[in-house]
């Protein structure tokens, strides 16, 4: 409301800037221009006299200047007299059209100015958006809950405390999810420098480098994976990428051996095992189909880590897991249990819109399995999204 009062005030001022001079100026034609000229020349004559008095110009120069000005003055006077003969006629003509012109301009000021301004503002403006000074937003806890905002806060914190290894460690996987693998790799590198090397950091750093490099395992990433394997010979992810590197280098036999040794460690049902089979298939090696899958919940370590974190960080961690699950389901599909897990998580996070989308997608994905589809429908009803 205040906003529109301010707009009205400005508009009234603008209209007055037109209307007041219209009302106050006298009627009729302006003074003949030649008279103005004569005035300028007369003041010039006075100026010459003053200069002469102050001794700035010589007697001869003053005389010459006077002659020159007088010549122009006479010409201007003559013109003014000629004009005065036609002036009354011009004044009449001006007065005749004057009333119409006045009405038109008044109407423009009263109607066109407000209409055009408000009309254009309604098209271009955003009257509903309040000002959002950063300081106020940072103090307001309701603001800035979204992922990019959280990241911005962490970044601000890290800019001030670049030696905070834990901070880098927290922000790195988030960068990965936000599609900023380069930043993620840099953040992991700092975390490793400050907190020391371990299997997860080395592996994730390598992964970030691979993603940043469009899927190619670079020498730097390779070294990171090898460090990880040196620390834990059974670690799956680094071995996966090392096998991928062999494939990319066209070292077929070594690659097949590496993939098969990975597959030998699979319990069955891991998402990566399917990928390994596909890689092997590409290399011309057939493998048996996987056994039925169980739903993998968060591991114990993940839950413990979540308990250690602050509310914001925990929210962030849940989100990261939800996003991961969502992405996997979107890309590879999954069981009814996995779809339901995602739905429950979204319900907890209060992301209703996304929940509705996920329900629709689950129904679509599981439409060939009536039991599973029914289970999804039941849960949807339970979560208040039944149709």
């Amino acid at each position, binding site marked *: 409301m*205040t*906003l529109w009062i*301010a*707009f009205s005030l*400005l508009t009234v001022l*603008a209209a007055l*800037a*037109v209307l*007041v*001079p219209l009302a106050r*100026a*006298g*009627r009729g*034609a*302006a003074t003949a*221009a*030649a008279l*103005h000229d004569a005035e*300028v*020349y007369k*003041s*010039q004559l006075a*100026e010459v006299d003053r200069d002469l008095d*102050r*001794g*700035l110009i*010589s007697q*001869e*120069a003053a005389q*010459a*200047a006077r002659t*020159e*000005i007088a010549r*122009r003055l006479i010409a201007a006077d003559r013109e003014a007299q000629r004009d005065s003969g036609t002036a009354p006629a*011009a004044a009449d*003509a*001006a007065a005749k*059209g004057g009333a119409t*012109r006045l009405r038109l*301009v008044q109407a*423009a000021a009263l109607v*066109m*100015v407000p209409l055009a301004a408000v009309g*254009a503002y309604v098209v*271009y*403006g*955003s*009257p509903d*958006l*309040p*000002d*959002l*000074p950063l300081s106020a*937003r940072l103090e307001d806890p309701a603001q*800035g809950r979204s992922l*990019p*905002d959280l990241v*911005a806060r962490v970044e*601000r914190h890290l*800019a001030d405390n670049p030696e905070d290894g834990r901070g880098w460690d927290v922000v790195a996987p988030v960068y990965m999810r936000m599609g900023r693998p380069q930043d993620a790799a840099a953040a992991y590198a700092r975390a490793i420098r400050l907190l020391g090397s371990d299997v997860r950091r080395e592996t994730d750093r390598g992964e970030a480098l691979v993603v940043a490099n469009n899927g190619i395992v670079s020498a730097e990433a390779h070294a990171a994976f090898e460090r990880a394997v040196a620390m834990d010979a059974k670690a799956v992810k680094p071995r996966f990428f090392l096998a991928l590197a062999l494939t990319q280098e066209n070292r077929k036999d070594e690659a097949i051996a590496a993939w098969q040794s990975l597959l030998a460690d699979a319990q069955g049902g891991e998402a990566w095992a399917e990928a390994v089979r596909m890689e092997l298939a590409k290399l011309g090696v057939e493998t048996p189909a996987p056994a039925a899958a169980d739903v993998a919940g968060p591991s114990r370590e993940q839950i413990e880590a979540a308990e250690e974190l602050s509310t914001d960080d925990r929210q962030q961690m849940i989100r990261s897991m939800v996003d991961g699950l969502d992405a996997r389901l979107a890309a590879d599909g999954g069981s009814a249990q996995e779809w339901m897990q995602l739905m429950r998580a979204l319900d907890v996070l209060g992301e209703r819109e996304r929940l509705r989308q996920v329900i629709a997608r689950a129904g679509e994905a599981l439409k060939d399995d009536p039991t599973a589809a029914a289970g999804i429908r039941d849960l949807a009803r339970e979560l208040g999204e039944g149709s």
Partner: protein
Amino acid sequence: MIIEIGHFALILAFVLSALQSVVPVWGAVTSDRRLMAVAPPVAGMQFLLVGIAFAALMQAYMVSDFSVVNVIENSHSAKPTLYKITGVWGNHEGSLLLWVLILVLFGALVAAFGRNIPMELKAATLGVQGWVTAAFLLFMLSTSNPFVRASPAPMEGNDLNPILQDIGLAVHPPLLYVGYVGFSIVFSFAIAALILGRVDAAWARWVRPWTLLAWVFLTLGIAMGSYWAYYELGWGGYWFWDPVENASFMPWLAGTALLHSAIVMEKRGALKVWTVLLAILTFSLSLLGTFLVRSGVLTSVHAFATDPARGTFILGILVLFIGGSLALYAWRAPLLKQGGLFAPVSREGALVLNNLLLTVATAAVLVGTLYPLVLEVLTGEKISVGPPFFNLTFGPLMIPLLMAMPFGPFLAWKRGDLAAVGQRLYAVAGLALVAILVSAWWQGTDRVPAALGVGLAVWVICAAVAEILSRARFGDVGLSTGLARLVGLPKSAWGTAFGHAGIGLTLLGVVAVSAFQEEKVLTIRPGESVEIADYTLNFSGLARRTGPNYVDDVGHFDIYREGRQVAVADPAKRLYTARQMPTTEAGIVTFGLSQVYVSIGEVHSDGGADIRLYHKPLVTLIWIGCLVMSFGGVLSLFDRRLRVGAPKPARRKMAAAGQGGD
């Protein structure tokens, strides 16, 4: 709310400018006092409204309101407050708003201070100013609106281009824009004269001060931009003949010509039609510069926009205003009365020569700037014209101009005596000759062009001094009266002297730097030292330093002369973290008028660094000359007399006096 009020004020300003475009001009052609009376208050109101809009945008930058897209794109919460403010015009939309703010400021100034201007002329002038304002506000609102909002708002912005995070951004664009846009009011005066079909005495009276005002600011703006490039870009150049620099230089050249032709018109009533044309051309060149910078046809630090829609729109404005005004000129100029006859050898004649050379020089710069662009559009071939072209075209045009310059102020109006003036310049010519011989002897005879350049500069500077001394007539009236006369001289006479001397100083700086500078490019390790000119620089290593939104590697050099430490220099290589963009911060130490300039290139892992090292003799004169020139302009601006020029009787006696005054 503040942002939205700013947005609404901007829209309202556009609506008013549309009204302003029609009503006063209509009143002027129908001699209707009431309609004409609308012009000044509406001009003032537009200034108020655009001012509100500008203040609102600035407020959004100061509080880092990232709900404004323009702020997101060009600011960062960690940026120092000064750069938050200057960031307002460090981008396309914001600088356009500054452009329009200055446009309406000039309208408001004419409305407020133009009491002596005849009503018709004032109304028509403000009406034409309304056309320009309306065109640019429409451009801004439809393609470059700074008040577009983002929802949801991000928590951080993208930061300002690091090269622009400098005190230079606080000074250079506002000065330059006052200059550029200031010529708009002269343009409006010219178009108004064409509409009304008469150039009256008041027109002649008012064009010169407005031109001067714009010219002073343009001079300072260009000089500041040149110094900024010199210390920020890290390789010691001060003028690159970059198309964007040329875009500001062309209006300056045309504006300088206009300044001089306006003198003839004011004093003698001659050259009216030519002055009107120059006024149109000068502002047209300003518009051309705006087009080059904002259309995306150029890539440089100045090129803001690469959006073709904007380019097309500005091209439209350009064609409309330049084409329209020239067509109006062709149609209406024959109505204007020519005045004042003069002999070829006279003050007027000298000023015509000045105009001739300056306009040809402008044309040369124009060709050199546009030819590569046109060629690229037509054939897709990319060529770079570069300094050699300009040295071959612009340089030779300046030589006769500068050689003739000292004669002008000595010549009498209407008919002059060249021989008599020559006599009075003997002593100055002698001094110039001595300067040539001394510099040839000092720097070796293989540098004859440089020695001649020094001589030309000395000729120009000494002639300016001689002219002002001869006006005091010390030989005739004795020392004390002479001094009194010197003080009492019209300010415009002092203005001329300072303006011309300033050109000479700048020329001296340019010649000295291009001919006598020393340059070294080398890799230096901590503890090593390097010698240049009379100085020894000791490098003690690099240190890492953290700024508000950057980190930099600062090198430390102790500078010795004849074994004594005389200064230190701390050049830096800076990395702006938000944009991951490096910049160089040159270390510059001034000794008298000369400078030692160090800038750091690549930093090596062993603590060494590649450096560029220069000794630049008399380099500061380049910018000091510009300051002196501008000071001359300011003096002349405050000469509020109603000036008139008339031929004086023969002055053989005074000729002798002039020589005595040298």
